[in-house]
């Protein structure tokens, strides 16, 4: 196994790519549709261009970045690029306790740098119009509803990871593609409910960027994106282990 510092670097770069291209796609969608009237208050601008197709496009941007990262860094660090995934693997004793905090620090740092570099790449409108792609509950969505949705979305992500990657009987080689597409599907459905973070680091980066670059203070919503994803991921890992456990006959 490579050193912890190299694995942290892989997590850092992977999470950076996820936020730069994924959250960046949300920013660009909002900038393209800026100034156009929205049909209702549930529509904040993503959906004006192509309905649910806007969310599919954003989801695919996330999905392709995740797939590329998994194929590039999967053998180096495991390419969790998501604290909820790291914690879920630790919870089922598949990941060492001593590596959990370093992995999460690397993921949060990578996500943060992505938000700052996206701002530097696109300019002030990335913050003023696109909000750096920060996630928050959409109009009419309550705090607990948002936690529930994030938990269910992350449940699907983690159950896919368990099925196509953690399970030793899984067909090798498909993990990156399937997990990327799973994320794209989750975002398509729950994007307009919570922003579809399903990853505490993905929300942390834009929140930190907003705070330090003079944007909105959204930290009151951060517990949604910690509790929901972690609960969903741990539950999926435990349920999958229970379902797939075999007894000798």
């Amino acid at each position, binding site marked *: *196994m490579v050193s912890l510092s190299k694995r942290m670097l892989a997590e850092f770069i992977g999470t950076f790519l996820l936020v730069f291209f994924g959250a960046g796609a949300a920013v660009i969608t909002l900038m393209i549709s800026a100034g156009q009237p929205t049909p209702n208050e549930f529509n904040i601008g993503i959906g004006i261009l192509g309905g649910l197709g806007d969310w599919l496009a954003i989801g695919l941007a996330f999905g392709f970045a995740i797939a590329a990262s998994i194929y590039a860094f999967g053998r180096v660090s495991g390419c969790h690029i998501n604290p909820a995934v790291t914690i879920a693997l630790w919870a089922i004793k598949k990941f060492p306790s001593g590596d959990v905090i370093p992995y999460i620090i690397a993921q949060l740092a990578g996500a943060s740098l992505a938000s700052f570099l996206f701002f530097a790449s696109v300019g002030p409108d990335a913050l003023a119009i696109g909000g750096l792609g920060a996630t928050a509950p959409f109009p009419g969505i309550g705090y607990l509803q948002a936690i529930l949705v994030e938990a269910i979305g992350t449940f699907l992500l983690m159950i896919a990871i368990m099925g196509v990657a953690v399970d030793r009987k899984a067909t090798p080689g498909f993990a990156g593609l399937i997990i990327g597409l799973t994320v794209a599907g989750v975002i398509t459905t729950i994007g307009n409910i919570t922003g579809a973070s399903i990853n505490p680091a993905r929300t942390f980066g834009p929140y930190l960027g907003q705070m330090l670059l003079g944007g909105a203070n959204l930290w009151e919503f951060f517990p949604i994106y910690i509790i929901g994803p972690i609960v969903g991921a741990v539950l999926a890992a435990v349920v999958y282990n229970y379902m797939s456990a075999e007894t000798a006959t």
Partner: protein
Amino acid sequence: MKCYICAQQGKDTDAVAICIVCGMGLCMDHAIREEVDIWEGGYPFPSEKMEKTIPRILCPPCYEGLKGD
């Protein structure tokens, strides 16, 4: 079985191994034993190189082909 390479050179040498790629019989002079690393893991776990290796016997042409020399 005789060594194929020795036979090409007009010699008659007993084979002691077979190339795993082409099936050529090989004597001790022409058999090349490679030790192949075993890696376990991969997404979502970091890969680990195992202490043990897998032996693999090759003939000189296949060895050169696989090594890209």
